[in-house]
């Protein structure tokens, strides 16, 4: 079977992409309005929402960048994954119910709509939409580039496509993404997320089993090698040390619910009571899929440090090298499909919220009304956004790195105080929200543009988020509380 490895992988990836296209066509018939396009008419069941929330959270970064980080720096980055139980808890304790209630009462379609409903401020809505657009462009560019690179590496292994270019690979993979996002909007996005989430869980579980069998002594033997060669890498804080790890725990744990592509999905469930089932399914789905991150990274590091395998050309090669060398061809096929699933499930969420920011939120903040024929413009904006992100991805590597790194920290720092705290504390003010978003953007930009090295590798996003939270609460405490609109006031009592 080994000689058919590449065709088998290609077959699985092609089948996966075929499913995405079919879901897009199916969802097109269910998408009749902008409300359907952006929030699926608030009619999704708990299975769909839970898998959509977890698969959007674990992007291509978790399946490619995660194992690469463990290979390069030991267990430091695992704090980004073990905080998931806290992250989802903050999401469901603090915003899932309120965001869904406000969406229904105000017919909200996006996070900036929710921010406007809560604070009654066009400036806060505009800043939220602008933040989302900035973060989305960066994130989307990295996801599109990752899709292209992975597809190129698969196709290059076949005779027919041995010399395929990166541009062609980006074009093919983006075409599939654009097709199902444009035709089916968020309905296609969440139903492909369902497929993608299942593929990711299967891939995560199977890879752990494979990884455990690489050494005769299982993970204990790998641990023995790492303890002998270094030691710190397999201890809880990895090679980067405690402050780097703990700042990531803060940023990713408390910042998860501030991610707009995750929070937006919390306003799509049919019934409020579904949240009871959605939370545990999300938490356990995520942890199984994330096991790939841990196990592949540890095994590849032990193989290289133990002189069993040659050093990798780059840290991000950890997962592809593991799959192409140690995984059964069928498993490699499933995991490569899982890899595309992880990337696409995040990218489609970004396309959706990015398009909403362009055609719904920004016009509403500036003109106080949305565009005519929103559904048509939503589809047009989705295509334009994808093409711009693909162009950025192919034209400027440095910009991608800058914007990509900017993404999670930007969303967390700007939106956590405004949304998580603001929806649970009536005294929170619009001025404080505007100041918190603005300052968090300034700090994140300054750190990225000037490449400021922070001692002990403390996360820049953490510093921005801590500052914005303090500023938000501090300014709100100083201000005299203002009366809230009747509906929002009553929702915040519930």
């Amino acid at each position: 079977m080994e000689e058919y490895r590449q065709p088998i992988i290609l077959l699985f990836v092609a089948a996966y992409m075929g499913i995405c296209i079919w879901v897009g066509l199916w969802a097109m018939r269910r998408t009749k309005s902008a409300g359907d396009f952006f929030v699926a008419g608030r009619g999704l069941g708990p299975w769909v929402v839970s898998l959509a929330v977890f698969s959007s959270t674990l992007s291509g970064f978790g399946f490619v960048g995660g194992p690469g980080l463990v290979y390069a720096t030991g267990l430091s980055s695992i704090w980004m994954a073990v905080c998931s139980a806290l992250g989802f808890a903050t999401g469901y304790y603090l915003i899932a119910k309120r965001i869904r209630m406000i969406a229904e009462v105000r017919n909200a379609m996006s996070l900036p709509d929710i921010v406007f409903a809560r604070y009654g401020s066009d400036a806060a809505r505009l800043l939220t939409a602008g933040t989302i657009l900035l973060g989305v462009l960066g994130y989307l560019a990295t996801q599109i580039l990752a899709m292209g690179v992975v597809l190129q590496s698969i196709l290059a292994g076949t005779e027919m496509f041995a010399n395929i270019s990166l541009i062609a690979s980006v074009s093919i993979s983006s075409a599939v993404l654009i097709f199902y996002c444009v035709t089916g909007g968020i309905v296609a996005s969440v139903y492909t997320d369902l497929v993608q989430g299942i593929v990711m869980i299967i891939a995560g579980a199977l890879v752990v089993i494979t990884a455990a069998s690489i050494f005769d002594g299982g993970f204990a033997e790998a641990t023995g090698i790492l303890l002998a060669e270094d030691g710190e890498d397999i201890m809880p804080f990895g090679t980067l040390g405690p402050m780097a790890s703990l700042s990531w725990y803060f940023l990713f744990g408390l910042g998860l619910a501030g991610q707009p592509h995750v929070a937006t999905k919390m306003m799509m469930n049919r019934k409020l009571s579904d949240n009871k089932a959605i939370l545990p399914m999300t938490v356990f789905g995520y942890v199984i899929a994330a096991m790939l991150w841990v196990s592949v990274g540890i095994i590849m590091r032990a193989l290289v440090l133990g002189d069993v395998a040659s050093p990798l050309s780059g840290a991000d090669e950890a997962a592809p090298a593991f799959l192409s060398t140690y995984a059964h061809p069928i498993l490699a096929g499933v995991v490569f499909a899982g890899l595309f699933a992880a990337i696409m499930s995040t990218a489609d969420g970004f396309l959706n919220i990015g398009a909403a920011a362009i055609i719904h939120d920004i016009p509403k903040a500036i003109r106080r009304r949305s565009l005519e024929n929103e559904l048509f413009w939503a589809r047009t904006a989705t295509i334009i956004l994808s093409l711009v992100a693909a162009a950025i991805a192919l034209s400027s590597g440095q910009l991608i790195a800058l914007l990509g790194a900017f993404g999670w920290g930007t969303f967390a720092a700007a939106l956590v105080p405004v949304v998580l705290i603001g929806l649970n504390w009536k005294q929170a003010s619009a001025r404080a929200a505007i100041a918190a978003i603005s300052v968090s953007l300034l700090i994140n930009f300054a750190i990225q543009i000037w490449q400021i090295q922070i001692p002990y590798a403390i996360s820049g996003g953490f510093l921005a988020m801590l500052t914005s939270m303090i500023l938000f609460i501090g300014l709100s405490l100083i201000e005299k509380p203002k009366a809230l609109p009747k509906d929002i006031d009553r929702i915040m009592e519930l």
Partner: protein
Amino acid sequence: MKIIHLIFALLLVIAGITIFVLTGEPPTGATGVPHPDVSGLSLGGDGAEKLSAIGRAPYYFQICVILLAASLLYLGVPPHRRDHLLRISFVAGITFALFVWIMLWGGYESYLLNGETTVVFGFPAPTNWMFWGIWGSFVAFDLFYVFAFRRYFLHPDDEAAFEALVREMEEEREAN
């Protein structure tokens, strides 16, 4: 003391610890050292030396983060639903999370002191506390959400009040 004041105080303490760490002079290799032969791969180096300038600051930092996280979760429970049982449950959850953290840090300090650790389930004991304990301590809060959902997070009375609000708003919209 209101819960928001406690959250604010904890954020200020976390900021204070962070400033203390940032203003100290980091020792050489504070964030690892490059592997001598393998490019792109770093080694941990001397873990004890890394903490020489900041001591147990990370330990206290994480205690504050755990308390902050639990306080934020408490903020998410509607004020009129916060009762004695809820407070007891939260205290139990926080105690468990702190216990896990103390075991993790204690195991790590012990490793730094004598260079030895016990391997359990294939990984060093402190690493297991991180994998399963740190994750599990907030899974306890996730499970509490599931089991106490109707009591604290969507009480039938609150659900009915929301449905009444929706009807009211629809009537207002139709009237306009």
